[in-house]
């Protein structure tokens, strides 16, 4: 027994000594910026059949990097580890359809936003949930009026007992957890997998970026997914999609903000948005 305890202690000591955590970069001249994206969130960012990263943010990144006069390297990173890996210095920026929220501002900072999309609920063609009316079409969560609160409560009661899928660690998952108490939330690593489970009938509805649902509708297997009800933005759902940065890298934030404003003024963001989304979601920071 004594030897077992000793073994356990040695094991714990080894584990703890590995706590060398990389820290954020000191003020430096930025020549090379490594940017992470998920590569599974079309049309924001995705991976084509040859494994190349493509999408709105990939194209926008190229433009921003030219404006910042830095060399950029794009890396693919799974969504659920995308903020920790930024903090550990694996890359310097995140452009992955990530909304700037107060929750995330506790650990990282944002440059932007460069775009904004509401979140929407969707179900399969033929689902009774599709009869839920889009009245009003959009609710801003920032300062909820009494009427808007009623809209959310009505939805919560209509979805009561249902299973709703959302991507893990997203604004949408937080929204369901906070405002839909009677709903079973199932969280997924990727938005494609939510789509597959919605088609399979394992979940009754999904809650995601309207454009990400649009991305699913372009795929053969998930084409029958249909948006329903009121769409939501602001407040808990964030203030638009922005570039995520380590808090220490103030200079990099300045660089990105300037480039984002320039790209927007030059109409590049709008043009790329229309090209990838079919409509303009660009916003001024």
């Amino acid at each position, binding site marked *: 027994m004594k030897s077992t305890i000793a073994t356990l202690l040695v094991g714990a000591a080894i584990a703890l000594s590995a706590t060398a955590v990389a820290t954020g970069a000191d003020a430096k001249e930025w020549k090379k910026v490594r940017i992470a994206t998920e590569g599974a969130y079309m049309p924001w960012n995705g991976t084509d059949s040859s494994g190349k990263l493509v999408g709105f943010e990939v194209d926008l990144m190229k433009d921003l990097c030219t404006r910042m006069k830095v060399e950029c390297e794009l890396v693919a990173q799974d969504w659920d580890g995308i903020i*920790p890996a930024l903090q550990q210095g694996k890359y310097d920026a995140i452009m992955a359809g990530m909304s700037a929220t107060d929750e995330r501002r506790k650990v990282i900072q944002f440059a932007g936003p460069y775009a904004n999309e509401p979140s929407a609920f969707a179900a399969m063609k033929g689902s009774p949930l599709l009869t839920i009316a889009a009245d009003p079409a959009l609710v801003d969560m920032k300062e909820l009026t009494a009427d808007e609160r009623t809209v959310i409560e009505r939805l919560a009661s209509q979805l009561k007992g249902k299973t709703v899928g959302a991507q893990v660690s997203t604004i949408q998952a937080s929204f369901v957890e906070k405002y839909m108490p009677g709903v079973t939330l199932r*969280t997924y690593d990727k938005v494609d997998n939510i789509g597959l*489970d919605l088609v*399979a*009938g394992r979940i009754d509805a999904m809650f995601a970026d309207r454009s990400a649902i649009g991305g699913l509708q372009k795929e053969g297997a998930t084409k029958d997914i249909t948006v329903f009800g009121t769409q939501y933005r602001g407040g808990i759902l964030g203030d638009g999609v922005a570039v995520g940065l380590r808090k220490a890298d103030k200079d990099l934030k300045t660089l990105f903000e300037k480039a984002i404003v320039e790209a927007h003024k030059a109409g590049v963001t709008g043009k790329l948005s229309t090209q990838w989304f079919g409509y303009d979601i660009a916003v001024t920071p």
Partner: protein
Amino acid sequence: MDWELMWDSVPALLAAVPLTLQLVALALLLGLGMAALAAWARLSGHAVAAGAASAYVFVFRGTPLLVQIFLIYYGLSQFEAVRASLFWPLLREPYWCAILALMLNTGAYQSEIIRGAILSVPQGQVEAARACGMSRLLLFRRIVLPVAVRQALPAYGNEIILMVKASSLASTITLLEITGVARRIISQTYAVFEIFIVAGILYLLINFAAARLIRWAEWRMTPHLRARV
């Protein structure tokens, strides 16, 4: 290191332990059934049955468990025929998909353990039993089984420990067992290191108990190897 966060995460992670244990226990038990069937088929001398059993073992030992889980959960559900079948109420649930995948996987490994253990029974003992006029069933129960079980236990203990660790893959199909809960907490706190350390310790404790249990069983079953008191 954020010790407070680690401490705070303990209740949530502990609450996930029963699901992990359920997955492991059910998969091991059902897998044992699969394995016994496959081992019997391979030793039966019946060419078709032996071939089918070898094919099963070959496929499930030769492909990654993660791929098997994805094929069963996301793959099968794409077929309309599967969704219309009477298996759908089970296959619809991530819980049963995980158990099915773990069961088929461990069954393949366990069948090899069982086959090896049975083959290790000395031929002389079997012949002696036959000479005494034992029926096949009695021979199996009295002679083959006790020797084979003793022979299989160490390898079987290994398989249990491997299964406890393998059950963490169930988190990839939305199940909130220990790893699933850990990933969810990390997605809210971004404290990868702290939370996974706590999760790792829980797995260590489970496997520590499992190893002790196996060792106790071995001790119980081999009185003839102990010094006489």
